[in-house]
Structures are given as structure tokens and as C-alpha cells.
């Protein structure tokens, strides 16, 4: 087995990240005197290098570890998204951690480990890798969620996330074991071949797929597996929440899409009604409960649940081979739209947050339009994008999702999606109303990296909308060779 036979060069970006994270961990302990200031810079360098090596991978699909990892367009597209998200997350965290007195070098190292887990997840073509990547993604996130220690809420968020995440991991693992029992295979393509040849115990395959769906449903916060989301999002340090909202979703959905579309198309007749119900519940619960929230972090948590619902909408069509490429491309596009809007809105939350959880209520945003017009404008753009109002990425994302759903002839789901979008307008626009129409004197922070992040994401939300057609074409091309 030589290096090229294993295909190690094809997963070079992931290797770079993992090795770099280990090196940073050591440097952090032994070398730097003011390390909490140097480590973020160095981890950003690692992310940029990985990004430079990822972009040329777009094109012919490549394999590693005898086909257990597949670096195809789907993986490369999401890896680019995740690496850029990582850079944004580092920029968001730097000022916030310094301000809150949480600046420690390990923070960024954990983030690098988690990002490498997400990248493995997007390329996983074997259920073993799916499970390992899931844990590599999650374990650093548990630590990050509790990073605000000894603050009680943060520890509480960490332990809740940990217990429920490990619980979900157990479901995924048992599901994988049943699939292995039904087919004798763990590779995704092997499972399809075994399933098409007729199975002795087809019920094992079905139950296994359902358990995998439950476990990954936890990770992407789909109703009824969403109970942890508001508490964890509220308790975790805000910069962690921002990263978690995007990272865990991208990883979870990447695995869901690839596993179900490649390995389980044969049981789509049985799975699709379940997915339909899951999607409808996620859309309704996420949006309806968000209306009652006064705390901005909880509001954005329910909002992220509802966006998981919109992504699931396209996923419902997975059994229909003619719609599948279109729906997958729509999901990829929606994840870009969600990532950029979500990071932006969390950046604004960070700009208003003060020590001991002050500045997180909706009332604290009163008067922001007068005091910090640019910041308020950015927040307004993000809220419009979440609602799905043009000219923002959120609108384009919903457009493509709805197109895929209607092509798949799930009209009921499309109507439901429109109705909950109207409900969501109420709570998103309420934020805008409070910012511009209420009198108040909010205390805000103006810090270099934070302002830069807010500005870049706000401009990106609008500019990428203008270029949404080429971006969607890129996503469509990315999934072309997947099936």
C-alpha cells in the first residue's frame, strides 16, 4: 500500500487540517507566550491553505482508502463552504472571546478538528466513515459548547448537547449495524448492489435506515428531535453557536443526502412518508414556537430549526430519480444562503451582547437604527434574507427549494412552506420593527474583525443574490457526477 494507492493526496486538505490542528495544540502549550492572540491567526492560515488545496479538486471525482471516501463535486462544494465558514467563525470568535475573557488557544484547535470532521462527513462513502466523521464533528462541538465555563449556562449547554448527541450517535450506530446485518456491506454502493439482489431480511435494512434518519435528524435539529437546540444555542458562547448552527447542519445534511440518495433509494417508498411528516413537523414547530421568543438567541435557534425544515423539503423528493439532481443542487444552494445569513445575524448578536448575558433580549435592539445605522441595516438584510424577501440570498434559496418540491409534485408541502414563510415574516420583521420604530439607547461594541464579518456577510447576502444563477449552476454541476 503506497501513499498514492490509498489516495492520501486526494484528501490532502483534510490531512492538512488535522495535522495542523495537532501542531497548533502542541505549539499552544509549549511555545507561544501570548498564544491566545497568535493561535487564531495560525488556524486561519491552516484554513486558507486547506482551501487553496480544495478548490482545484473540483472536477473529476477521486477516491481515497479504497473508495471509503469519495471526493466528488458534492464534497468539494461543501468543503469550500465549510472552510470559508471556518474562516468567518474564527473572525467572529476573536474579538468576542477577548471581550468575554474566554480567549484560549484550544478553542480554535477544537474548531479545526470539528471542521475536518465535517469535511470527512461530506466525502464519506462508507457507513464506518459516516459514524467516525459524525463523532469527529460532534465531540469538539461538545467541548466548545461548554467553553464558557465556569458559567453555568454554558456548562449546562455542553452537558445537554453531549448527552443528547451521544444518544443520537447510538441510534446512528445501531442503524448502521442493522444495515450491515441486512446487506453484509457498509460501503454505500455495496449496499445498493446487495439490496437490488434481494435480501433475506429486508426489514433490517428498513429499520436500520430509519434509525440512521433519527440519529442524523438529531444533528440537524429536525422536529421531533430538536429539543436540545434552543437550550444549547442559548447557553453556548455566541461565537460557538454561530459555528455550530452552520457546521453541524452542513455535516448532518451532507451525510443524510449522500447516504439516503446513494444507499437507500430502494426503500424510498417506505421512507418518504416518514420524511414528509418530519419535514411538515419541523416547518410548523420551528416557525410557530419562534413567534413566542423574546430572547434573540432562542429566536435564532428556532429559526435555524425552521430552515432545517426548508432543506428537508427538498430532501423529501429523494426517491424520485428525475428530480434528485435538481433537489440536491437546491439543497447545496440553500446551505450557502443559510450559512451566510446565519453568520451575519449571529455577528450582529455578538455586537450587542455584554457580559453576563445582557443585551440578548429583543428590547435591547430598540433604537439600533438610530444609533448604529449600518449595523441595523445589516441586521435588517439578514432578517429579510431569513424571511425570503428579494433581493437577498434567502429568496433565491427558497425559490430553488420550492422549484424542486413542485417538480417532485409535493404540492401540499409547497403550500405548507409558503404558509410558514408568512408566519416567519412576523417574527423576523418584528426584529426590524424594534430596531427602527422603538426608542432606545442600545450599548453596542464596535470591533474590527466583527465589523468586517458583518459587512462582508451583509454585502455577500445581496451580491450573491445577483449572481445566484451562476452559483446554482455550479451547484448543479457539482452534483452531476454524484449519481
Amino acid at each position: 500500500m503506497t501513499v498514492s494507492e490509498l489516495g492520501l493526496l486526494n484528501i490532502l486538505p483534510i490531512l492538512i487540517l488535522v495535522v495542523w490542528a495537532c501542531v497548533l495544540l502542541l505549539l499552544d502549550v509549549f511555545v507561544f507566550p501570548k498564544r491566545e492572540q497568535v493561535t487564531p491567526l495560525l488556524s486561519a492560515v491552516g484554513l486558507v491553505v486547506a482551501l487553496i488545496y480544495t478548490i482545484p479538486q473540483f472536477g473529476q471525482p477521486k477516491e481515497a482508502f479504497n473508495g471509503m471516501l469519495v471526493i466528488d463535486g458534492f464534497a468539494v462544494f461543501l468543503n469550500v463552504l465549510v472552510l470559508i465558514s471556518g474562516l468567518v467563525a474564527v473572525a467572529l470568535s476573536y474579538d468576542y472571546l477577548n471581550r468575554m475573557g474566554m480567549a484560549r488557544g484550544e478553542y480554535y484547535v477544537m474548531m479545526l478538528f470539528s471542521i475536518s470532521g465535517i469535511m470527512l462527513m461530506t466525502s464519506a462513502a462508507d457507513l464506518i466513515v459516516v459514524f467516525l466523521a459524525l463523532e469527529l464533528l460532534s465531540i469538539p462541538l461538545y467541548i466548545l459548547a461548554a467553553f464558557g465555563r465556569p458559567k453555568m449556562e454554558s456548562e449546562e449547554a455542553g452537558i445537554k448537547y453531549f448527552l443528547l448527541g451521544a444518544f443520537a450517535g447510538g441510534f446512528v450506530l445501531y442503524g448502521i449495524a442493522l444495515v450491515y446485518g441486512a446487506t453484509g456491506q457498509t460501503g454505500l454502493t455495496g449496499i445498493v448492489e446487495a439490496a437490488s439482489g434481494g435480501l433475506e431480511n429486508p426489514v433490517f435494512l428498513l429499520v436500520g435506515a430509519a434509525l440512521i434518519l433519527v440519529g442524523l435528524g438529531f444533528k440537524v435539529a429536525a422536529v421531533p428531535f430538536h429539543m436540545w437546540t434552543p437550550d444549547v444555542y442559548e447557553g453556548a458562547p455566541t461565537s460557538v453557536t454561530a459555528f455550530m448552527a452552520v457546521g453541524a447542519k452542513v455535516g448532518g445534511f451532507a451525510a443524510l443526502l449522500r447516504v439516503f440518495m446513494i444507499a437507500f433509494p430502494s426503500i424510498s417508498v417506505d421512507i418518504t412518508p416518514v420524511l414528509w411528516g418530519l419535514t411538515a413537523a419541523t416547518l410548523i414547530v420551528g416557525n410557530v414556537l419562534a413567534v413566542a421568543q423574546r430572547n434573540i438567541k432562542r429566536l435564532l435557534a428556532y429559526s435555524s430549526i425552521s430552515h432545517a425544515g426548508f432543506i428537508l423539503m427538498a430532501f423529501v423528493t429523494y426517491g424520485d430519480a428525475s428530480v434528485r439532481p435538481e433537489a440536491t443542487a437546491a439543497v447545496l444552494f440553500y446551505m450557502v444562503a443559510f450559512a451566510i445569513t446565519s453568520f451575519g445575524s449571529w455577528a450582529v448578536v455578538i455586537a450587542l451582547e455584554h457580559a453576563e448575558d445582557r443585551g440578548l433580549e429583543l428590547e435591547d435592539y430598540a433604537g439600533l437604527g438610530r444609533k448604529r445605522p449600518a449595523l441595523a441595516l445589516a441586521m435588517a438584510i439578514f432578517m429579510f434574507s431569513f424571511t425570503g424577501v428579494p433581493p437577498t440570498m434567502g429568496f433565491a434559496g427558497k425559490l430553488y427549494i420550492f422549484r424542486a418540491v413542485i417538480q417532485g409534485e409535493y404540492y401540499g408541502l409547497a403550500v405548507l412552506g409558503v404558509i410558514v414563510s408568512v408566519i416567519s415574516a412576523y417574527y423576523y420583521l418584528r426584529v426590524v420593527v424594534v430596531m427602527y420604530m422603538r426608542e432606545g439607547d442600545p450599548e453596542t461594541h464596535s470591533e474590527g474583525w466583527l465589523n468586517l464579518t458583518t459587512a462582508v456577510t451583509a454585502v455577500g447576502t445581496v451580491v450573491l443574490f445577483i449572481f445566484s444563477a451562476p452559483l446554482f449552476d455550479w451547484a448543479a454541476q457539482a452534483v452531476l457526477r454524484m449519481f
Partner: protein
Amino acid sequence: MVPVSYYVALSAILFSIGTLGVLIRRNAIVIFMSVELMLNSANLLFVAFSRLYDLEGQIFVFFVMTVAAAEVAVGLAMIVAVFRNKRSIDIDQISSMKG
């Protein structure tokens, strides 16, 4: 030789006990032990099935054990941190956030 189906049944029972334990018990460490039981019931299933097919299932078990060990390290550290703060690991008492 004991038939494979016996092992499958035993593993299903263990998995159910683990799941119920997570849902019913209130002590963080007991919940955590129940999660470990779920993982180990899956391990039993892998080993049992690998008798029907190939060695892949047995190899998977080693990976799972490694992951479980990593989870234990993080989880127990977190439980200790909470205990220092609260003097309790009852998850009903460490639930200050509502909404």
C-alpha cells in the same frame, strides 16, 4: 453453536434498555452509562453479523470502542465540571433555561 438470531435478540434487548435508561433516569452518569450500553449493543450486533459475512463487522467494533473512549473522556470531564459548580448531577436541577 448458538444461532445468530439469539445474539440479535439480545442486542435488541440491550439497546432498548439503554434507550429507556436515557429517557427515564435523571442522573447524568446513569444516562451516560445507558448511552454506552446502546453503543455496546450495536457492537454485539456487528460481531454477531460478521459471522454471517466477513471480518468487517469485527473491525468496526474497534473503531466504535475508540470513539466511545473519546466520548467518555469528554463526557466525564463535563460532568465533573458541572458537579463542581452545582454540587449535583441531577439533570432536572441543571436545567435553568426555559422557553
